[in-house]
């Protein structure tokens, strides 16, 4: 098998890992950052960007090999890709489908964007809590200072 063919297969199918589909077009890199997969990752990650999608117009697809993302990691996704669909792959088969769900509160995913919030500083031990006011459009408020959060700013405040 030639090298380009191997690369192609990596994009199309993985043996074990996680496939995140229906990420809004262009957001895949942000998703990788949110999941902590943008740095010196030990596991191969492949991405397809700007694929035409009937469901959301254009989409990105991310495949993470040899790693099954936890529900907590997946819940982070909801901040920027609430419509994403997630499949856990084992032996080339979809073993599980996971649902993205923000719930009523996002705990210890992001810290508050307000510069004078009581949770400021990395030494305060209580959990960072964002109340989900609405999902569409996504509207979060800090449990402590009650300030509404700008989602783009918030993504920069991932813990």
């Amino acid at each position, binding site marked *: 098998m030639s090298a380009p063919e191997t690369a192609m297969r990596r994009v199309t199918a993985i043996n074990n890992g996680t496939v995140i589909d229906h990420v809004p077009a262009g957001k895949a890199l942000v998703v990788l950052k949110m999941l902590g997969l943008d740095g010196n990752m030990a596991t191969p990650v492949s991405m397809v960007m700007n694929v035409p999608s009937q469901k959301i117009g254009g989409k990105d697809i991310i495949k993470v090999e040899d790693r099954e993302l936890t529900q907590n990691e997946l819940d982070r996704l909801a901040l920027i890709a609430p419509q994403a669909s997630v499949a856990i792959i084992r032996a080339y088969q979809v073993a599980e489908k996971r649902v993205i769900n923000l719930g009523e509160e996002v705990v210890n995913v992001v810290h508050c964007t*307000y510069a*004078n919030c*009581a949770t*400021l500083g990395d030494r305060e*031990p209580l*959990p960072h809590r964002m109340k989900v006011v609405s999902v569409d459009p996504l509207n979060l408020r800090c449990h*402590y*200072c*009650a300030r509404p959060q700008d989602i783009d700013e918030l993504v920069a405040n991932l813990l």
Partner: protein
Amino acid sequence: MGPQSNAHRSGSLKGRGGTAVSSLITMDDLSNDDILDVLDAAERLLPVAKGQTHLPLLQGKILGNLFFEPSTRTRMSFETAMKRLGGEVVNLGAVASSSVVKGETLYDTIRMVDGYADIIALRHPRQGAAQYAADAAEVPIANGGDGAGHHPTQTMLDLFTIKQAHGTLEGLRVVLAGDLRYGRTVHSLAHALVRFNCELVFASPSSLRMPTEIIADLEGHGATIIESDDLVNHIDDADVIYMTRIQKERFPDEDEYRKVAGSFTLSAANLDSAKEGMIVMHPLPRVDEITPDVDKTRHARYFEQAFNGVVTRMALLCRMLGIEVPSNIGGEA
């Protein structure tokens, strides 16, 4: 140990904060009925607040005053309220300042003083500090102001003053005047008044208008709001005029400040055709926005308002500590 202490012990950080029921962090912690109950209790406690009746309802209880920034009036008013009811007060100001110097977390400070008192009155420069403290503490937290956040005991004493004068909070026409942009007090009061269907007039210089998101929020709750850059024309229809101080620092130069501040000043002459029962309020300290000749008119209510801080906090302390205020106090002296 307060009666609420035992039920909430849980070793973990998460899931503490079982005191939410008895803490007072924002006005949202009180329903309209709760507000009216507290104001009624405060009314009954007036002879106790004035020292005419001895009623040690809070004997054996300790209030910890934990002030991370100075606010003499709020601190002393909490202290007086506690002592009038026979309770003790520990001033934790030194703890607050030393914890800041040593870089102690708010969490650790709260956990430590939690053991010193049955209830903590907290003032802190950071917004959300009161909720944070309530989540960390076993004992109830009374928010005495957190940054640009909330100061519910101030709102309660304002409501008490209004209800005392008019017998009701319902449907009054209230003019909020002066600096409506930066004033936490007026934001919180406006929200509370809307819950009682008051009509609000926001009279301010254009640079110090009520923030649009607050107006949108109030209107979302069905409020009738009039905005104006003129105070004088709204005096005659008012049931309450709530004055606030316009700070010099908000203006680029002295001339501009004088010009603007001058048109948001009340003198006795302005009140000639005001309604008989109209009251003038001010959170104090005032500078020039209410001239001294107003003090002698029947409308002036700002000094009573300041005193009401004591009686209202007495009623709130009782509520937060789970102590019932008797319905007939006069007979028990």
